[in-house]
């Protein structure tokens, strides 16, 4: 279709005043990364002004365009997912829509991710804003087999919908033809009876504004504090009190926050609309079943069997296949039967007898397990450093990240977050916190970085603290599994119960002690699908590479440190210095102090050191009651340490020096304190 008119870039630069004085205004809105700025550039040419939105540090770009023979002031807003703002950027976009006098909107949406765009379209429709919808990146959506029935979508929304490829300017002429005719959408998401009734009570009490009263009423019900100044300036104190009364009465009907309830019901409306207009190629096969399983997995009751099934599968794969079968094969068959003896024989052949040979492989004639050579002996790089890193840790890391990638690619992880939301609320967090926590079971350092997913500082600090304190990483889980196998079931239960108790108790206390506020839980759920093998393998490999780059040098460093301490007779000194804590408070054997020293490098390394002390008794079944208590106490104490030096640095980086040092100052004495308490309790009740 050939348009009768089009945008033309101005030939003369315009100043800010001239731009905003244009007779008509076009506001571009859309989710982040949908090509909004490309479209803005195509509409306005290069004559734009950039200024901070009044009272904020958020930049807003304005430009001029000629559309349909008229001059337009075009305003590019920061990307937003929601008109109920959760960040300063989103608030600026909402405030522009609320305060600009006369305008029409152009919503730019990623055609590949229509669901997210429709959620925003629902809110623009509710707000009574005249708008046109541009389905951008239409070519990429088509390439992925996503077909959108634009006529049907246009009919359902009651506005013009145009497919575009902004980078190629495809669809732009048609879009320009439609923009001046933008109308108000007739689409209205319906909410449950209680919300609709509260809205009908609330709407007459609200001051008039550019946005519809229904839309503003929903924002007020959801507890949008940023609307307070506008409300206070337009409503009397009595009205404000009535508004708050309606909101509170409605909130008391739901266990979740109203923000969450409204968002969920609006999302359901967007989902229904999405399903009416989108068809997929091969991907749609079995989508009904996927949707049903997806719905179960977020349900607090039906989700439990799904969760148990996932946990059982993960345990069988990581805990049994990874931690037992693979570890046993790599450690005993590959390393101790072949790699270590071959390396020892090779080095004894290559390196002349004497101090250097002793340094590398220990004294001749003695089995490698009884010597203390640097490369082979009891602290040897091959026998301890590499054997530990490659034979014990790697299989667990690989199987864990493989499981994690499967969960991630299937779309189950965000559903798990929805299901456990209530549990985490108790710890001042929301369901999203389950993601860093689960990832922490793979690598706490990586997970500390993922704590950014939490929206407030308070939540990030709590997640970081809990990760540092009570979430063992896969390397440590490997050694814990190995040690728990040598303990009775009761001792294993003591260990697990103490760690879980500490996690919840510290979380609960932190939620009450750490200043700040939590946030509401809004997370987009991608469709549930069968994981794609290629994606899973690539993601697993990328995580393993990242992990090994971080972890392996530390294994080598730990080995070297221990060897240096041993050779310089410092280890004995350190053991004696740590004796008051290790022997006096925790009642552990003096030599376990060296394991604790390594715990400052990596806590799993400490567990490995403890494993070496008790392994002979475990393998022969001669563990006594006192030894079982000692192992449990040592494991609890070490597990509650800061995971590793890399994690400590990551905490400093992500949370800042002050918070990072405060977390460390809390964790170390707390770990020893809990260890001492467990020792006392076990000696009395075990």
């Amino acid at each position, binding site marked *: 279709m050939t348009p009768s008119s089009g945008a033309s870039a101005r030939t003369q630069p315009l100043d800010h005043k001239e731009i905003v004085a244009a007779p008509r205004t076009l506001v571009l809105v859309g989710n982040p*990364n949908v090509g909004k700025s490309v479209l803005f550039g195509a509409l306005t040419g290069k004559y734009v002004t950039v200024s901070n939105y009044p009272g904020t540090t958020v930049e807003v770009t304005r430009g001029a365009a000629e559309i349909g023979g008229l001059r337009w002031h075009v305003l590019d807003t920061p990307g937003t997912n929601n008109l109920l703002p959760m960040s300063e950027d989103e608030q600026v976009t909402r405030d522009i829509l609320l305060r600009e006098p006369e305008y029409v909107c152009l919503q730019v949406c*990623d055609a590949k991710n229509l669901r997210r765009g429709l959620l925003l379209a629902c809110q623009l429709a509710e707000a009574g804003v005249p708008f046109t919808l541009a389905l951008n990146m239409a070519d990429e959506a088509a390439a992925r087999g996503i077909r959108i029935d634009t006529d049907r979508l246009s009919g359902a929304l009651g506005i013009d919908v145009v497919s575009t490829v902004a980078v190629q300017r495809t669809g732009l002429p048609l879009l320009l033809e439609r923009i001046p005719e933008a109308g108000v959408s007739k689409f209205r998401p319906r909410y449950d009876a209680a919300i609709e009734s509260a809205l009908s009570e609330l709407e007459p009490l609200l001051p008039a504004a550019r946005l519809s009263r229904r839309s503003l009423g929903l924002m007020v019900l959801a507890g949008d504090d940023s609307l307070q100044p506008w409300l206070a300036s337009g409503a009397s104190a009595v009205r404000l009190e009535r508004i708050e009364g309606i909101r509170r009465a409605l909130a008391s009907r739901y266990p979740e926050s109203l923000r969450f309830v409204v968002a969920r019901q609006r999302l359901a409306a967007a989902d229904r609309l999405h399903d009416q207009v989108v068809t997929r190629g091969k991907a749609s096969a079995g989508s009904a079943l996927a949707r049903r399983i997806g719905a179960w997995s977020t349900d607090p009751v039906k989700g439990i069997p799904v969760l148990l099934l996932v946990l059982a599968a993960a345990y069988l794969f990581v805990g049994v296949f990874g931690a037992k079968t693979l570890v046993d094969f790599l450690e005993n068959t590959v390393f101790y039967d072949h790699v270590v003896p071959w390396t020892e024989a090779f080095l004894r052949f290559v390196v002349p007898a004497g101090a250097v040979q002793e340094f590398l492989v220990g004294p001749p004639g003695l089995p490698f397990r009884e010597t203390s050579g640097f490369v082979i002996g009891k602290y040897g790089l091959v026998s301890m450093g590499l054997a530990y890193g490659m034979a014990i840790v790697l299989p667990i890391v690989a199987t864990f990240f493989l499981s994690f990638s499967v969960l991630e690619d299937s779309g189950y992880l965000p559903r798990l977050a929805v299901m456990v939301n209530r549990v985490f609320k108790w710890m001042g967090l929301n369901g999203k916190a389950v993601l860093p926590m689960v990832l922490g079971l793979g690598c706490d350092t990586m997970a500390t970085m993922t704590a*950014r*997913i939490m929206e407030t500082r308070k939540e990030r600090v709590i997640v970081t603290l809990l990760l540092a304190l009570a979430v063992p990483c896969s390397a440590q889980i490997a050694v814990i599994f190995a040690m728990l196998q040598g303990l009775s079931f009761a001792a294993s239960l003591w260990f697990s119960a103490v760690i879980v108790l500490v996690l919840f108790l510290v979380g609960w206390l932190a939620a009450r002690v750490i200043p700040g506020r939590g946030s509401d839980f809004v997370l987009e759920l*991608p469709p549930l699908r069968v994981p794609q093998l290629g994606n899973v393998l*690539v993601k697993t490999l990328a*995580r393993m*590479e990242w992990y090994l780059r971080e972890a392996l040098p530390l294994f080598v460093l730990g080995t070297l440190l221990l060897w240096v301490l041993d050779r310089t007779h410092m280890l004995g000194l350190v053991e004696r210095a740590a004796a008051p804590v290790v022997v006096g408070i925790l009642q552990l054997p003096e030599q376990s102090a060296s394991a604790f020293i390594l715990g400052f490098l990596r806590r799993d390394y400490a567990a490995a050191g403890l494993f070496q002390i008790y392994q002979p008794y475990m393998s022969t079944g001669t563990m006594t009651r006192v030894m079982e208590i000692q192992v449990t106490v040592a494991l609890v104490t070490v597990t509650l340490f800061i995971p590793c030096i890399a994690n400590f640095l*990551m905490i400093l980086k992500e949370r800042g020096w002050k918070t990072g040092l405060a977390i460390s100052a809390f964790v170390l004495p707390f770990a020893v304190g809990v260890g001492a308490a467990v020792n006392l309790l076990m000696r009395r009740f075990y």
Partner: protein
Amino acid sequence: MPALVQRQERCPLCGMAFDAEGQGCRPSCPLATGCRVVCCPSCGYSFPQESGWAGKLKGWLDRRKEAGR
């Protein structure tokens, strides 16, 4: 470790497709300056960008997919 490769990424958590440019790990990382961890602009989820062996595997899989079309 090299910095991020500028390309389209898809968040494994929320499904958001975005340009990796400007979404990298902060350069003050004490472990490896400019490591290849990407942060989703929509949900904040961090994930390592496929590089090294994973990048090679991804390239090989993409080429196979293209050839199959």
